[in-house]
């Protein structure tokens, strides 16, 4: 298990989009614990607005949401040149095997599996972030 410093994400703007308030809050608390500036949205529509406003380092989005789901979000994002380079990590439900591959095909950078636990969330996230050269350099590891 990696021993990650608490200032890992200091100064990073991160947008988390999830319609489940509790789930959103857990992610928010954990990310805050590592120093990130966390912005939240409860559906894809809202999420896009926040992303356009904040221009975060990356975003984490649930797939199943009202109004505009994760698929709609990534689709619009990829068609918007202003924001299309911002990596978005999908949050997939447990064992939704088909969703994961589809998520990558649709333009998500990668995916994280729910539930988000204190032990695994941040570690799994870091493993994904090191794959993104621009971000990897900025991580305070």
């Amino acid at each position, binding site marked *: 298990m990696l021993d990650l410093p608490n200032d890992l994400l200091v100064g990073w703007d991160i947008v988390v989009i999830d319609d489940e308030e509790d789930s959103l809050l*857990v992610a928010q608390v954990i990310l805050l614990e590592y120093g990130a500036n966390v912005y939240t949205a409860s559906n894809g529509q809202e999420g896009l607005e926040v992303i356009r406003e904040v221009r975060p380092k990356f975003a984490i989005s649930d797939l199943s949401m009202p109004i505009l789901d994760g698929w709609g979000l990534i689709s619009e994002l990829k068609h918007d040149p202003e924001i299309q380079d911002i990596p978005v990590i999908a949050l997939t439900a447990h064992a939704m*095997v088909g969703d994961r591959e589809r998520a990558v095909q649709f333009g998500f950078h990668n995916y994280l599996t729910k*539930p988000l636990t204190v032990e695994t969330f941040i570690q799994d996230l870091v493993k994904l972030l090191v794959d993104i050269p621009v971000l990897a350099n900025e991580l305070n590891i």
Partner: protein
Amino acid sequence: MMKHLGVFFPQNTLNNLLNKLLEPSASIPKEQALSYRLLAGIILLLIVLSFVIGIVISFISFGLNTQTFVSIASFFMLVSAYLVLASGRYLFPAVLIIGIVATSPMFTVIVDVEQYLNSSALGLSTLAVLLTAILFPNRRSILLSSAWVGILLLSLLVFLPITITDLVTPLAVLVAAIGFTLVFDSHRNALEQLRRQELVAINESLQVEIEERKRIEESQARLVAIVETTSDLVGSASLDGHPSYINRAGRQMIGLDLDADISDMMITDISPAWANEIIGQIGVPIAMSRGTWTGETALLGRDGREIPVSQTIIAHRDANGNPTYLSTMMRDITAQKEANAQLAANAKRIRDIFDNLAIFALMLDPDGKVVEVNQPIYAITELKPNEVINSLFPNTPWFGHSSEMRDLASHLVQQASQGKLITVEMSAIVAHGLIIDVLVTVGPLLNDHGKVINLVASGVDITALKQAEQEQKRLIKDLQAAKRLADENSRLKSEFLSTMSHELRTPMNAIEGFTGIILKKMGGADFNAKTEEYLHRVHSNSRRLLQLINDFLDLSRVESGRLELAHQPFAPAHLAQRWRDEISVLAEKKNIAFEVAVDPDLPSTLYGDEEAISKVTINLLSNAIKFTEQGGITLKLEARETTWNIMVSDTGIGIPPHARDFIFEEFRQVDQSSKRKYGGTGLGLAIVQKYARSMGGNVSVKSELGQGSTFTVTLPLHIAE
């Protein structure tokens, strides 16, 4: 010769005379020949008489002188000539006698030259005639030579010193001789002719008779040969029943020697009593009255066996029409009878088959008229033969309920009579007004030349079949409905489970997340030691609950067929690394060894569902760690020809043999105590098996109690997309 004579005589007169004299025998009727004979006799008698008178007168007037002697000699000479001519025999002695007689005057009257000349002229002339008659037995030459002698004599009269009176006698003798010869000759010819004719006639009639007899004999021989060689019995018998003749075949049939005497037999001996009764009471009386009778009777064969025969009796009659005897012919008809019996048996057999078929069968003529109907049709329709035989197929009572069926029947007949075989479903009305469904086939029966001689219609009662079919259709419909309902239920169930799990999971995620945050004292959380202990319990239980929900969701997903498997490339070595990272933490915690071995032959890239494979492997590895207290666990990836294996071995407690059969079932652990002791939901191995199978593979286990277990997951080796 005629022509020369014609100089001296008128032609016709001479011809007539010659014809009369010379050719009377050519075609003399019997009566005329007789009258010639009579005439010849009278002439002969007159000549002889004139000679006798002449001699007597000479003798009286001249005494016994030379002249008288010459006359007497001439007479004997004539008689001799007659005898010679008449007999045609003793030619040489006759010539000798005539010669002596002719020359005798030379010795007797030698003294008198005149007498000598007289006598010798007479003798020579007579000799000439006779010689001519003998050497050339032809009446014409006699006549001519005689004429010549006459001329000679006349010349003697002229040149010699003799008087006419001297020549009277010799001339008379000469003329008489000529006439006599001619008459006699014609007489003889006529007789000969007559005799010859009679002989020819007799001969002819004899010949005819002989030929007739020969013919009759030949034809009789032929008839006998036929009768003797025929294979039928031929015999004849007197009216009182005594056989007079039985031919060879007949004797052989009844066992009688060919040369046996049959005179003591009675004709009734050769037939059995019943046959004799027919013969005696019917056969013979009819033959007597009508001439012949033919009927079937029997013979008693040589072995006592009755031989069936076709018998003909013929009554023979005499010229007055009275029956004289009987004859009979008997032909062995055993073979015919047997053939008839065989034919009858065959016909019955065919009829039996026809009647005992489990189908309806009928025979139609090419126009569709019913010829034969089998028993099953009569049985089901309760119709009588006269109600259907000779009816046209479409007009039969069983199509009485529907004009559509009648039209269809007409169509069938029409098609079949053109040589086609056609099968249709029809309905027919049978006894008690029942309507049945029949599968009807009508086809042609062809002769050797391919001409349609009959039509055969057969039918199978498919009423029950049709009902069964309807029933089946209904059942299938019901089943389909039930299946739809079941599918729907299953879908609803899966959906429910899915939704339930999701709904359960959401709060569990929150509980899990927040207890984790609190325990990590994130976000300003704080608590004392007791609180921490309780929170740990909440946290671990929430995890168990979450695991249970997740496992349950996995299972329900596999069972409902909603598990979508990816077919993506992955690197087995990377996967093994990932599993090592994940599990080694747990192994370290329990202080047991964990070894990973990857077969170098395993391709670096495989295709499949990485996550599903991981789920299976992690499950097995977690189990292995759970049940192992000391020693270690091993993970091996091995390549096979068309598969690859994931083997997880441990040195744990092992699985008792009885439990190996059910450990892959849901909620089954080796026993309840192990559940309490080792925890877990009892779904792990069931998930492993179901996942392995849905990937086209399987899982097996080898275990020794107390020694450890080895689980082997076999998966198909997909090395390309």
